[in-house]
């Protein structure tokens, strides 16, 4: 049975201990050179947070992708459950007026 708060709710969590000792899974977020917020880029294994940042540097920033790296243990991420997507998201589908698409944004404002 998967926990509703797991970062990967679709993947059942094993209740028994893993057969092999594995390093914990870390989710990696990188702020790009020109981006404004950290974006999730993927995940990796590492023994601790310092090595997770070093591994993220090697796995995800080889091509000058980032100026800042965040890592967080995947088990610390709370996620919504796919089975609740009806009540969570469908009520906003018919409310087009919630999208502020009727305004012209001046160019000087830049990315929003």
């Amino acid at each position, binding site marked *: 049975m998967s926990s509703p708060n797991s970062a990967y709710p679709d993947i059942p969590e094993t209740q028994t201990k893993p057969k092999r000792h594995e390093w914990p899974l870390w989710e990696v977020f990188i702020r790009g050179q020109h981006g404004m917020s950290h974006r999730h880029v993927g995940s990796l*294994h590492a*023994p601790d947070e*310092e*090595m997770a940042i070093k*591994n993220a540097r*090697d*796995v995800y920033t080889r091509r000058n992708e980032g100026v800042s790296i965040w890592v967080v243990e995947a088990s610390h991420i709370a996620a919504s459950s796919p089975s609740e997507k009806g009540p969570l998201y469908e009520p906003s589908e018919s409310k087009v007026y919630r999208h502020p698409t009727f305004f012209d944004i001046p160019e000087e404002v830049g990315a929003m």
Partner: protein
Amino acid sequence: MADVTQEQLFEFLCRMGDNTLVLGHRVSEWCGYAPVLEEDIALANTALDLIGQTQMWLGLAGEVEGKGRTADDIAMLRDVWDFRNVLLAEQPNGDFGQTMMRQFLFDAWHLAMLTALTKSTHEQIAAIAAKAVKEVQYHVERSGETVIGLGDGTSESHKRMQDALDLLWPYVGEMFVNDAIDDAMAAAGIAADLAELRAQYDAHVTPVLAEATLMIPEGGFTHKGGKTGFQHTEHLGHLLTQMQWLQRAYPGATW
């Protein structure tokens, strides 16, 4: 300020370039075999950094020599007796711990050496060092963290790291033994005095090994003969048969 001869400068550049070439090839041997994917990528990155530095050092060596040899010619078409790398660089990978110990012991020297070379009176050498030192700063952080993690880890990992240190420590001294070439470079302000680097090295390495709960072996014995070309260990010849195979079998092959 004293002048150095073209031969001395060529020799010095080959030492720098052969260290990174031979160690870079050694580290690349892990590609596809490292214990976990993340370490595999990190080791391959380190190897690529070192090979990139080799291109700069041996490229400059070829220019200084003035016989039209490229970095590739120097790397791929010399035999064992012409290589000027320290013996530490050519030692086999062993287990992952031994590889990381070798890396840390080399990286700490490499960082001290390159930091000094950024102030070289030779403009091109200072420029190469400035580019390389940023990569090496990262190498030594990673290898040092790994040495601490494994040394102060389980009894199995601790034992393997102590064995690696016992095996490799006698190769450390060679990086600091100076000869006429080093003296000439220091006198001309091209490179630093190796004795000064040793003090920096010890100040860096000793606390890391202490934190890793590892004991530095006693005794001052040092294997040497690599950087002078006097005598390499048997491992270098085997490495070259792999590294140079393509150019030997198909001379001039390109892609």
